[in-house]
C-alpha cells in the first residue's frame, strides 16, 4: 500500500461535542496503517491538549491522558498554532507534555508538540495528500 501524508485537522474543543474524542479514536486506529501522519490543532482544537482536565463532575470520560500514548503509536508530529493559543490566553506551558522516543538517538525522549506560526501551519496543511477534518 502506498504511503500518504495524512493530516488530522482539529478545530473543536473537547466534551462540548464528540468530535475531539472520535477524532482521537481515528488517529489511534490509523496509526496501524503506517502512514506519514500529522496532527494539527488550531482554533478551539488547542483546548483538547490542555493540562488539568477533570471530568469527574460532568460524568464523562477524560480522554486527555490518551494523547500521551500517541508517541507509542509513532504519532510524532503534533502541530499547535501559536496564534490560536494566544487568542485564548494560553501558551505552551498550559499544554500536556507529549513525547516520543527517537530510535535514531538512543531512544531519547523528544517533544512531539511543535508550536508553529499561522504561516507555517498554512504550509503544513498544504503538504498533505489527505486531510481528515473533525
Amino acid at each position, binding site marked *: 500500500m502506498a504511503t500518504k501524508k495524512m493530516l488530522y485537522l482539529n478545530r473543536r474543543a473537547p466534551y462540548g461535542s464528540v468530535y475531539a474524542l472520535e477524532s482521537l479514536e481515528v488517529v489511534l486506529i490509523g496509526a496501524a496503517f503506517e502512514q506519514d501522519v500529522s496532527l494539527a490543532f488550531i*482554533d478551539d482544537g488547542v483546548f483538547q491538549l490542555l493540562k488539568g482536565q477533570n471530568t469527574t463532575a460532568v460524568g464523562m470520560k477524560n480522554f486527555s491522558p490518551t494523547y500521551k500514548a500517541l508517541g507509542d503509536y509513532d504519532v510524532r508530529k503534533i502541530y499547535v498554532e501559536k496564534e490560536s493559543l494566544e487568542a485564548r490566553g494560553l501558551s505552551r506551558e498550559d499544554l500536556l507534555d507529549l513525547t516520543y522516543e527517537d530510535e535514531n538517538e538512543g531512544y531519547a525522549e523528544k517533544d512531539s508538540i511543535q508550536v508553529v506560526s499561522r504561516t507555517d501551519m498554512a504550509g503544513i496543511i498544504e503538504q498533505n495528500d489527505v*486531510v481528515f477534518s473533525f
Partner: protein
Amino acid sequence: MSVLHTVNKSPFERNGLESCLRYVKKGSSVLLIEDGVYGALAGSASSNAVKGAMANVTVYALEADVLARGIKGKLMDGVKLVDYAGFVDLVTKHDTTSAWL
C-alpha cells in the same frame, strides 16, 4: 500543492470561513457550500475578508445552496457559481480537499 477548501458555515455564526481564509495559499480555491454561501453576500461584515482573499484564490459558491437561500441577486462580484458536477470537477482539479467544519 493546490487545496480546495470547503466552508459550510455562515460567517456570522461560526469562524470556519475566517479561519479558512487565514490558510489559503495562491493557487488554492475556496468553495462555499450549505450555510457557507452566506459568506458570498455583498456588502456584509465578511465581504472585505473574502474580497481580500480573492487576490490569491478563486472563491466559488454552490449554486443549489445559493438558490435555496434566496440570495442569488445579493452576491458579491467575482464569486463563481458551480453546480454539484462543478463541485466534483473542483475536487479533481485540486490536489487535496480540506473541509472547514
